[in-house]
Every structure is written in C-alpha cells, then in structure tokens.
C-alpha cells in the first residue's frame, strides 16, 4: 500500500491528453554509479540512428546532471528530470507516463530512459519494456550479489570496463552475474570505444514495441521509505523519527 503515494508534484497526469497510438520501443537503462550507462547508450544510439530510427533520450538524476549534454551531441531530443529531494527511483516511476508522452511528441521510435543509478536497491524494470542494467568489472566480484532487483530483473546485463582487467576476472565476474540473473543476455561492451554495442542495438531493434506504459507493472517493488527524514527532518534521535522506521537487527545471523 505504501507504494501508492504520489511523491511527484511536478506534472499532474491528465488522462485526457491525447496520445498518438504509435508503437515505440521503451528502453530503461539502470546501473551502478559510474558504470558507463550514458557512454554505452550514446554509442548504441549512434547505431540506431544509422538504421534510420528516431531516438529520444531522457535522463533522470538527483541534483545535477551533465549526461544530457552527451545525448544532445547526437542531435536527438533530450529531456532531463531532476528528482531533487525525492528518491530518484520514485520520481522516475511517477513520471513514466509524462516521459512517454514527451517521447511520443518527438515521434520517437525508441525511447531511452536512463535512471539515476545511485542505489543497489533500485528496481526500475517494467514489464514489456526492455530493461538494461549496466555494471562494470571494477565494482568487485561480490557486488553482483549485493545488487538487487535492478540486476535480477534486467533483460540485458551490460558489463563494461573489461579492457582494463584480466580475462580471468572478466570470466569470473560474468559468472557471478549469471548466477544472479540466469535469464538475461549478458553483453561485454567497452563504453569508451563502443566495442560490443552492435549486439545491444540489435536487442533494442528486436524488442517489443509498446502501445502505452499506462497500466504496465513494475517487475519488482521500489525501495520504500516514508519517515520523518523523507519529509525534511534533520535531527538525530528516536524522538525525531516517525513513520516507517527500520532498525538494524544485531542478532541477524547469530541464530544460524
């Protein structure tokens, strides 16, 4: 029930806004910080444009972003959504219809929506959209286990920065990713040179087109939090805490 709160005050959804019923591929790109989400997508979009497709890109971020500049250099329509004081993932999900509408106004064949990618608990994947998770070889071989639904529910996992670690580490890392998400297609991509993006381009072209995002469902619930700190509380201490507060369980693992 908690998830039905409407956090976003930016744009009210007007159900009467006319939507062009043209099919569009909806690509959601998530991933750990600095993994190369934007670089990978810029290279991929370049190939999509070569195929004559109209691509629109939207970047969701927290306080600031310069990723829109990188997308703009491709000469494509770009939008930015800054969540400011709100969890960027909640902001993202409550703006999906608006972003879709914007992209349709751009006559896009493909919408690339890049999330902020700040937290391992992010869960932006939506059924019937193409969910891409970008992680890199440098985050450590135990990290795939720590990344939750963002990795586990992705249709495609892109692994970057393979050019600077050993072959052995690449293979071990890939295996760890496979263990967390056995269904996903795993692609090795070099974000700097774009090596490997052809496979991603083909996946996007083959992905299912979407009539409308309205009524679609998240693959996994979003991280939840409605507490006094969400509402701007800054003082430390139990007497300042209200709402959904979770405490560390220090006995965890001791019974086992």
């Amino acid at each position, binding site marked *: 029930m908690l998830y039905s709160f409407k956090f976003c005050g930016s744009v009210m959804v007007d159900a009467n806004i006319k939507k062009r019923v043209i099919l569009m591929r909806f690509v959601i790109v998530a991933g750990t910080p600095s993994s190369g989400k934007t670089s990978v997508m810029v290279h991929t979009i370049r*190939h999509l444009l070569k195929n004559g497709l109209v691509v629109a890109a939207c970047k969701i971020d927290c306080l600031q972003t310069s990723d829109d500049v990188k997308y703009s250099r491709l000469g494509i329509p770009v939008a930015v959504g800054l969540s400011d004081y709100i969890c960027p993932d909640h902001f993202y999900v409550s703006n999906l219809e608006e972003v879709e509408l914007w992209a349709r106004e751009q006559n896009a064949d493909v919408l690339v929506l890049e999330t902020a990618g700040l937290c391992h608990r992010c869960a932006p994947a939506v059924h019937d959209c193409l969910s891409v998770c970008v992680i890199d070889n440098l985050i450590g071989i135990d990290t795939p286990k720590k990344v939750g639904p963002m990795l586990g529910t992705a249709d495609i996992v892109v692994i970057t920065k393979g*050019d600077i670690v050993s072959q*052995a*580490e690449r293979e071990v890392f890939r295996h760890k990713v496979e263990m967390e998400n056995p269904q996903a297609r795993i692609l090795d991509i070099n974000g700097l040179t774009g090596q490997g993006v*052809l496979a991603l381009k083909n996946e996007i072209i083959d992905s299912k087109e979407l009539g409308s995002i309205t009524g679609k469902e998240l693959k996994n619930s979003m991280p939840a939090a409605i507490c006094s700190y969400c509402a701007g509380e800054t003082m430390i201490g139990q007497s300042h805490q209200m709402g959904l507060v979770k405490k560390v369980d220090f006995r965890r693992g001791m019974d086992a």
Partner: protein
Amino acid sequence: MLEQITILGGLDKSGHPEKIQRIEAAAGEVLAVAGPTGSGKTQLISDIEQHAEYETLTGRRVLINNQLVNKSKDKRHLRYLIAQVSQNMNFVIDMSIEEFLTMHAQVRSIHDPGNTIMKVLEITNHLSGEPVTFSTNLTQLSGGQSRALMVADVALISNAPVVLIDEIENAGIDRLQALEILTGQGKIVLVVSHDPTLMLMAEQRIIMKNGGMEKVCRTTQEERKVLADLTRVEKKMAGLRDYLRKGYSIGQDTDLND
C-alpha cells in the same frame, strides 16, 4: 571446436574496398597485425571480437569454421570464444593467486582444478623473472608477473580458442615461450604489435593502412633466419638485464654468459 577463423574484407576509411578480401587462420597458428598507429589495427580486432557481419564501421565479415556466426539469442556457446591479454590489463581483485585460480577453475568447470592451477603457477614462473607463489596476492604482482599469469591462465583455464595479444612489452615476460604455450594448446593467436620480433614469430602478418587490410605477408625463409638472430639478441639482452639486476659489474664479477 574451433578450427579456423576467416576474415572477409570490407571497406577502408576512405570507403574503398580493402585490398585484402580474405584471410584465414587455423588452430595453432599465430597471426600478426601490424601497421602505424591509427591504421585500423584495433578496429580489426574489434571486428573479430564482435563476429562482425557487415554492420561494423568496416563492413567486414568474420566466419568461424567457414560459417557466419549464428546470432540467435542463445549466444552462450560463444561467450568464451576470444580471450584477451593486453598491456593495459591489471588484476584488480584483492585475493591470493591460489584462491583466485581455484575460483576461476570452478567457474570454468575444470575437471581437475588442483592439478591445473599447479600447472598455471609453473608456467607463470617459467615466463617471468621473479617467481611467485600461491600465497602471493594478485594486486602485489609486477607488470611482468601479471602478464605471465594472465597468459598461463588463458592457456589452461580460460580455454577460449582464440587469444588476442595486444602490445605485450618484452620486459619481464618471455614472449616467444608465451606464444609457444598458447599455440601448443591449439589456440589461434592474434598478435598486435610494433615489434619486429613478434611480427616475425607469426606465420603471416596483416599490414594495415588507412583502416583497411593492405597486404598479407607470409614469413619467408629469410625472415626466419632474421627471427633467429633477433631471438638470440633478445636472449642476450635478457641475460644482460638479469646480470645487471643481480648487482654484478661487467669485467669485475663472474662471467656474463650469453
């Protein structure tokens, strides 16, 4: 099993068809890629890695065992087709050699991991100067030791049939031995290098120019003799390096043997 890869030519940077339209390399063969910086060496390697099928910049195609690669969804059988060792690569995992090799062997479902990782350590120490042990931490390895371990691991654990060797410097690793170990495992070895010794170690070399494959040279009898000379010089250099590193002075200490 991979027996042969074929590269079918596309276009150079000016959009003209490449002069070389077909190159083949068989298992156990070394193929060198040479040419000035910016001539398209990296793009060629990239095409091979992506199993290009007209759609890369160059429009090249790559055939495996004389067939286009099946690009169906299930590409898992291809995932370990190409292993790469380059000068820019480092071990970043904080773990001992033994722990890591064991983990890698498990991932690759190696039949006899204990024995295999012993052999990997042996080859590593055979290829590089200062010996390492199982308990040595990966992040403590020197450049040469890292490269030696990477080659040994690619040879015995990675098990990819094609190996790309990119600009491996001579210092700290016996490259001739490294290539012999890799080809001895039936691998196709692609070497990108500016170094004449490495170029001549290959059966054939592709000369790149303006983004295109300009020429293919088979190593001649004459060149093999030059290679033997170069190898002798390199051995002498290695001996001298070792001698000086140990703190000896020429003419004052024990003889410098070549």
